[in-house]
């Protein structure tokens, strides 16, 4: 389990614009704590994906400061960015599986990038595929997998390297409710058993109630509403002792 003290992500007055367009994200200031489970909600176009891109280091902000794992991401040299990306697991909304690689090789990708030896990798990926119920589809190419199977490959790839933070963009958007719940339980298990900080973007309000101990980040037109002050920093004076991060129930946010 991770050390839940301190912070894993800290945004300070962050804004993001594409080109000369108006800002899609404005004045974002919040802290994410290790071992916490966050839902990022908001209507379509609210800026969820843009915020996630900042979180998984696919985008640099137009203004403001971002610290991750204790390092200033704005001044971080380009050559050091991959090192921080390896600490993240990302489930993209469109999965972004590599088409020419099999399910096995897709899941193995983060390990190969980090230089894991093949015998060890073989065991780890096989177990991971078994865990997501895709052992029998290990050699299948993404194009031959169903939407749900592709999603599970994407999730297996995101968690195979035991990331310190898992970021998932609408991970249940393409699966039936039963599968959605199963995937959510996977994230919870990672969060509870491995201590991975989880950020799940979703517009499915019913999903929020499935993880009772989660925190809610709600985006409205590029601004973060924080009705309970749970996300502000420095953290409110009386954090929950178990996590170091204030927790609230989804129901408590009124969503």
């Amino acid at each position: 389990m991770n050390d839940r003290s301190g912070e894993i992500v800290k945004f300070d007055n962050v804004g993001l614009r594409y080109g000369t367009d108006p800002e899609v994200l404005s004045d974002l200031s919040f802290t994410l704590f290790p071992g916490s489970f966050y839902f990022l909600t908001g209507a379509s176009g609210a800026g969820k994906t843009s915020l996630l891109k900042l979180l998984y280091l696919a985008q640099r902000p137009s203004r403001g400061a971002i610290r991750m794992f204790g390092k200033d991401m704005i001044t971080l040299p380009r050559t050091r960015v991959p090192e921080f990306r390896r600490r993240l697991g990302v489930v993209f909304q469109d999965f972004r599986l590599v088409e020419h690689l099999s399910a096995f090789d897709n899941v193995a990708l983060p390990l190969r990038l980090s230089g894991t030896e093949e015998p060890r990798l073989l065991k780890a990926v096989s177990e991971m595929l078994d865990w997501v119920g895709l052992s029998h589809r290990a050699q299948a190419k993404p194009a031959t997998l169903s939407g749900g199977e592709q999603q599970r490959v994407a999730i297996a790839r995101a968690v195979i390297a035991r990331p310190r933070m898992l970021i998932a963009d609408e991970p249940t958007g393409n699966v039936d409710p039963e599968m959605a719940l199963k995937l959510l339980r996977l994230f919870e298990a990672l969060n509870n058993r491995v201590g991975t900080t989880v950020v799940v973007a979703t517009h499915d309000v019913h999903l929020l109630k499935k993880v009772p101990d989660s925190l809610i980040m709600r985006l409205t037109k590029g601004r973060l509403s924080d009705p309970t002050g749970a996300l502000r920093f420095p953290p409110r004076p009386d954090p929950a002792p178990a996590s170091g991060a204030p927790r609230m129930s989804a129901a408590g946010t009124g969503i």
Partner: protein
Amino acid sequence: MSSPDTIPEAALPDQTTPPTASGGSAASLLPAARFGGPIPWVIAILIALVVIAAAGGLSLRNLAESARTEIADAATVQIIEANPELRAEQADAVVAALEQDPLVRSLRLVPEEELASLLEPWLGAGATSDDVPIPALIDLELSRQASADEIAVLQERVKKVAPSARVDAQSDWLRPVYNALTALQYLALGLISLIALATAAAVWLAARSAFTNHQETVEIIHLLGGTEAQITRVFQRSVMRDAAFGGLVGLFLGLAAVWLLGQQFAALDSGMISGGGLGWLDWLIIAAIPVLGVLLALVTARITIAIALRSMV
């Protein structure tokens, strides 16, 4: 699907593993990013042209060096005298005068029969007739390459005993030939430089195209923590394979052309042309051309991919 409570933690890797993916594992990250199409053949043609230009340039250099060595320290004394007896007397006097000259290593009075045989193809059998006065010739081998002033001093000494004599340094009348050969060598060098630029441009275009074809995969690898070095290495490997293929084919084509040209020139049976043969060092230089081509392709591809990756965050 297994129960979420059974996370295969034993299977999860140790996060202390340093991010140093080996080339071997990185190689499978991208599909074979081969140039494909005509690019390896374009490289082959360009390398063949470089081989031909280089062989030509080296051959010209050898030719010039050979000619220079043979005649740079040589001179000829001509005694242009219509009277055969007087001509023979003056020739003997010149030989006597120059035998002790420190600038002259050796000399040889060319026999009249030899002169006649040299002239016969142009003047016919009548060349030996007294009606056609032929100058007496004395070949001089000098102890060193003489300056114009030294040749002038030699001329003065000869004039004292043979007023109708003239001294010609052979390097003087061959100077325009040397200049032409030098110009041709520079032309070969210029051609090689231009072809190298064309090769780099072809590789640049091909690398850009290969990168664009795999941009989606590259972006995914980038977002999963792949380093620029890992991605570049994969492309470099493909580029090296194609450039090596093109280089070898080009070398073969170029050598075939050089061999054919060599056969044609050898058939001329000219003493001067034979000096333009290629030595083992020349062949080594020609053999290195595809290697240099591959290196050029690798560096070009590396720079191209690095620039393309800079456009990503």
